[in-house]
């Protein structure tokens, strides 16, 4: 039996969009998190969206959100996204923030369990590039 091997040479360039652009620039320039607030539903989306998912109203108001949150879910990863073994396991968590809807999946340093309070640790300003990785990791408070 024979096999055929191949590769798909696909390259993506994804524009983060209006709301995520504001979100990432706030992290890059000011080391702060922002969400988007729907004036009608009074819900804050974090990360922000340009539409309210509930009433479809355009969101125009951006508000600061505390950089502390709660671990909603966490996983200890032993392989990277290509399936290669990691030298040491990496903790990844979904972090939600008080009074907001949504959350961020990011790296967490140290062992955490569901319900732990964590804080975003930002990279040095000179190191930031406007990426979600400008948050270096979350750490338990």
């Amino acid at each position, binding site marked *: *039996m*024979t*096999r*055929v*091997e*191949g*590769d*798909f*040479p*696909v*390259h*993506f*360039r*994804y*524009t*983060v969009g*209006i709301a*995520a*652009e*504001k979100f*990432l*620039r706030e992290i890059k320039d000011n080391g702060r998190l922002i969400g988007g607030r729907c004036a009608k539903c009074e819900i804050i989306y974090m990360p922000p969206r*340009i*539409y309210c998912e509930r009433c479809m109203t*355009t969101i125009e108001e951006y508000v600061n959100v505390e950089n502390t949150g709660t671990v909603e879910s966490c996983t200890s990863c032993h392989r990277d996204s*290509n399936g290669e073994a990691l030298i040491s396991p990496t903790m990844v968590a979904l972090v939600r923030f008080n009074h907001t809807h949504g959350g961020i999946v990011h790296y967490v340093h140290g062992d955490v369990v569901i319900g732990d309070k964590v804080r975003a640790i930002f990279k040095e300003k000179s190191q930031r590039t*406007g*990426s979600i990785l400008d948050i270096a990791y979350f750490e338990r408070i």
Partner: protein
Amino acid sequence: MVSKTSPAGTALSENDLEQRVLTVMYHPRAKYAWATGIAISKFLGGLKEGRILGSKCDRCGRTVVPPRVFCEYCFRHSDSYLELPDSGTLNTYSVSYISTDTTRLRVPIIPAVIEIDGTDKAGFLHILGEINPDMIKIGMKVKAVWKPSSERQGSITDIHHFKPLGE
């Protein structure tokens, strides 16, 4: 932020993408391996030897290429594999000025479906060569041009292209 932030969409130029808006670059490692199966394994092994192999069903008498492990009409196992001529008839073709990776071509490639002689209008997709696109006629006789045996590796590209059989 760039220009107007209209919910209906924001037009972005190449320059915007390079310098003004945040983007995420991503290059997935999308490798794959595909087991060729019993019949196609024989077919590819045949190509390496410079032979085109088909399969035959004794019940309906139909010969097909590439070979199959079962007859699609009778739904029973194929009875035999047999060597076919490396000539055939042009079923359809396309003159393409765009390559498989979407780059523009000055000299077009001509993908074509070739019905292999000795089969019941069975055949496969390949490339036509050594012909001016204006001279191509559906129904014309064509013949395989093989790569040298040292370069063949058990692939459909072991046939370099099909050329007109001559008038």
